[in-house]
């Protein structure tokens, strides 16, 4: 608008165009004062609504809209209503960065809830740093990151992968491990952490099988046969699966068809939730496991209330809830509380206010935002039931604090993220330097 105007002035103008421009200016001013009367706080929603990731991310968009709706019913925040700005980055990683920039500069959002894959998060990071805004990231991820502008409400590896392996080791007495994953950064980093962890527990190299497959892999015959072979040496075997997205369905179908039962070789998955199970016939999967920080079947008044309200909002009595949704619920409440505490939506003040903020999670506990921008959460191991839900068979005794940097990897053992005291996301506790690499 402004550039358009200066451009108009710079060129020789007829009287009529001057008039038009002035009229436009007056109208624009009128619109501006009118808008000010009902000013809103804008909340950006950066989730793919088309392309491969739409399957998972569309639900999260709906979740944020639902949360905003609920908050507005309570009167909004700081006396203003919240307004959602939804964009569609279309599962296209560079487009995530463009859309993030559009949200912050053009739509002037105060906070963004968004991203699913690690690659999309990495793609928007520079934008959030440069324009100094806030991103709430709701998905379990590989860790090894702590940024000032990002708040990680999903699980870090020590809140999902490590407890799951502990459970299998103790309760199922697993001795042999298949680490199967999709070939990209999250599975590769998680498996590196798990491999180091298993070896530290005395598991030998020959008892670990690592396997990667491309995105959307659909022919699992060879791999499932290999797993079967690997698992028939007499030692108890389990599969730790970081297989992501669509590839899970044919994988589980093949397991079922080749007759691998959970009592023989259990599969524990980190990316299979209620939403994914909705597309599978779950009868052959009975007893396979998943590790999450939230499952829908948890019996807690807060959870039951949330599920009821969510199903009413989506007008679908069968609509399921899942872990990343709960992460948004917690993140959203934390943001609201931080804004109320800071009495402004100014990014710097809200970022400083967030650590230490507490919010009720949906599983009967209270999560806290930590100085490393991760949160405390309980961890549940659930078994798949015939109705596509999880039955919690084990949970951590208390809440687990998310580690930004894994204790299992050489490169990150000494690093911590601390945005309160040290003002640093990768502080080396050995050398007392910010930005240092671990030993």
């Amino acid at each position, binding site marked *: 608008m402004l550039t358009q105007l200066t451009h108009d002035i710079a060129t020789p103008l007829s009287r009529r165009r001057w008039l038009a421009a002035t009229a436009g200016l007056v109208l624009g001013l009128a619109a501006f004062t009118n808008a000010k009367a009902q000013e809103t706080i804008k909340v950006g929603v950066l989730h793919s609504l*088309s392309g491969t990731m739409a399957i998972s991310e569309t639900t999260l968009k709906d979740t944020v809209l639902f949360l905003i709706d609920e908050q507005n019913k309570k009167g909004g925040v700081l006396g203003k209503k919240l307004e959602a700005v939804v964009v569609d980055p279309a599962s296209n990683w560079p487009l995530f960065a463009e859309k993030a920039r559009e949200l912050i500069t053009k739509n002037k959002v105060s906070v963004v809830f968004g991203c699913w894959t690690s690659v999309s998060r990495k793609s928007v990071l520079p934008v959030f740093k440069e324009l100094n805004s806030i991103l709430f990231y709701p998905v379990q991820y590989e860790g090894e990151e702590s940024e000032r502008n990002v708040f990680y409400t999903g699980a870090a590896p020590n809140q999902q992968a490590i407890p799951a392996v502990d459970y299998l080791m103790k309760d*199922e007495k697993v001795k042999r491990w298949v680490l199967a994953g999709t070939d990209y950064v999250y599975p590769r980093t998680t498996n590196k952490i798990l491999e180091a962890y298993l070896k530290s527990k005395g598991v030998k190299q020959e008892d670990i099988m690592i396997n990667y497959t491309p995105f959307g892999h659909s022919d699992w015959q060879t791999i499932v046969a290999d797993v079967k072979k690997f698992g028939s040496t007499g030692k108890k075997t389990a599969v730790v699966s970081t297989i992501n997205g669509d590839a899970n369905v044919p994988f589980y179908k093949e397991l079922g*068809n080749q007759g691998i039962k*959970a009592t023989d070789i*259990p599969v524990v998955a980190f990316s299979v939730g209620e939403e994914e199970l909705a*597309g599978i*016939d779950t009868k052959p999967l009975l007893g396979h496991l998943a590790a999450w920080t939230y499952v829908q079947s948890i019996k807690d008044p807060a959870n039951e209330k949330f599920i009821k309200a969510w199903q009413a909002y989506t007008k679908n009595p069968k609509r399921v809830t899942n872990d990343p949704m709960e992460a948004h619920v917690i993140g959203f409440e934390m943001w609201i509380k931080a804004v109320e505490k800071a009495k402004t939506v100014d990014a710097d003040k809200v970022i400083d206010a967030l650590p230490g903020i507490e919010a009720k999670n949906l599983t009967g506990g209270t999560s806290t935002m930590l100085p490393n921008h991760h949160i405390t959460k309980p961890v549940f191991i659930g078994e798949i039931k015939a109705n596509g839900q999880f039955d919690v068979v084990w949970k951590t005794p208390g809440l687990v604090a998310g580690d930004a940097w894994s204790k299992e990897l050489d490169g990150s053992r000494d690093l911590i993220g601390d945005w309160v005291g040290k003002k640093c996301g990768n502080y080396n506790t050995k050398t007392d330097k910010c930005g240092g690499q671990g030993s």
Partner: protein
Amino acid sequence: MFANVLDRFRALALSLLLIAAVASPALAGPFEDAVGKFANDEFSDTDEAIGAVATSGNPLAFAIISALQDGRLMADPDSKKVYVTQPDGKIIDAVTAEQVASLPAAAAAVRLNNRLRRTVEAALGGLTLLSPDPAKRIQAAQSVFKTHDEAMLPLVDDALKNETVKAAKLAFTEARAAILLFKPDATDVEKLEAIATIKARGDQEAMALLTGLTGDQPAAIVSAAANAKATIQRSLSLWSMVQNAWYGLSLGSVLLLAAIGLAITFGVMGVINMAHGEMVMIGAYVTFVVQETIRTSYPHLFDYSLLMAVPLAFIVAGAIGVLIERSIIRFLYGRPLETLLATWGLSLVLQQAVRTMFGPTNREVGNPSWMSGAFELGQVTITYNRLWILCFTLAVFAILLAMLRYTALGLEMRAVTQNRRMAASMGIATSRVDALTFGLGSGIAGIAGVALSQIDNVSPNLGQSYIIDSFMVVVFGGVGNLWGTLVGAFALGIANKFLEPVAGAVLGKIAILVLIILFIQKRPRGLFALKGRAVEA
């Protein structure tokens, strides 16, 4: 006959006693207390309860434990009462066996985890060793083979004596051998015999058993075991070749099925059709809609859902194909770049349309019973769904070939593709033939969608994962030649499956691509190049 049944019963009683001896020290106490523990909703309590109930000798024990396994054992957390829902829907009190009218509102199925499920299986395994159903007896014998629990020996001996079914007899003999092999006080002769039996079995389980043999064994036994292992290893590696070949055929059939429609639209008509994958996707969604209708209205017809979906998918996808040809493609003949862009855009439109209509999440398409499970052929596991898809693909291919060869429409199609102008001057309505050919290709893609819905996700992205592979197959096989598509698909499938165990799935796929690029450099027209005037046209 009667004596036989009596024998079985005696053995059953024996087995219960045996379980009593083997089971973990359960809390001594009356049957009622043990059953009440099921209502505590604690895995450790359930574990104790299983042990106590199995050893109680109570006539209800079997009913309770099998109900527990099937999720039919209901517990009321308030009154601590436990009920068994019988398969016929009747509900009985687990302690008194009295029938009750209905379950209390708070009653829920007693939960199990994998460890408990194994405990239940072991408890039932001892009982089913003498089941009247031979399949169940074999299954029980297999589980004894795996656990080779010494305490089972008298039971197995007993079962073996009464066994009449050949397969079950073999299973019991093997189970007995497994137990003897690990029995510390078995004689060397017995152990050598056991090794011979296990060697004859010759599968992965036998290998695992022999590998697990440790401790100080006499030299003769160690060498016999090593010998047996080497023999099994040799036969297993041979079988793994057969297995790879089968997997290759199966992957090839999927590739062929996805590519066969494209072989018509791209191969015969020369249209670079990027929306081909979406026709496959539409076929899969037709299957979903058919199954959904059947589920809600005619559940007993579920096993026939695929048979009904095939013609419907052909009609729907074919009609959409004709529509696309009439509204877009016919204006773009001879302009491959524009066709490519237009059909690619179309594919995005179709994807988003389906996403809006059916939602972005996967839709559940069930396998009919005749497509679930697997059977063993030697040491190779063959899953029914893959086998049916292979047969289906070959049938579709044969029908298509016959259609092109023996029908008037086929003749016209071939005429138009070979020389359009001459065909036109012979009185063939070329534009009508174009529309029908494109519709045929699309319809066949729709049929492929029905089959692929059985092994892949039914989501708006279904087609995308097949479009590259399909083009690869058609180009590799030779554009314009159906036989080339057939050979190309199976060659790629088998090559892929032999590379995968060596190089891994990701590298295997890359290697295949590199090989195809090199091959195309050498033979730009693919495996079976068309010769003659059509090539220059």
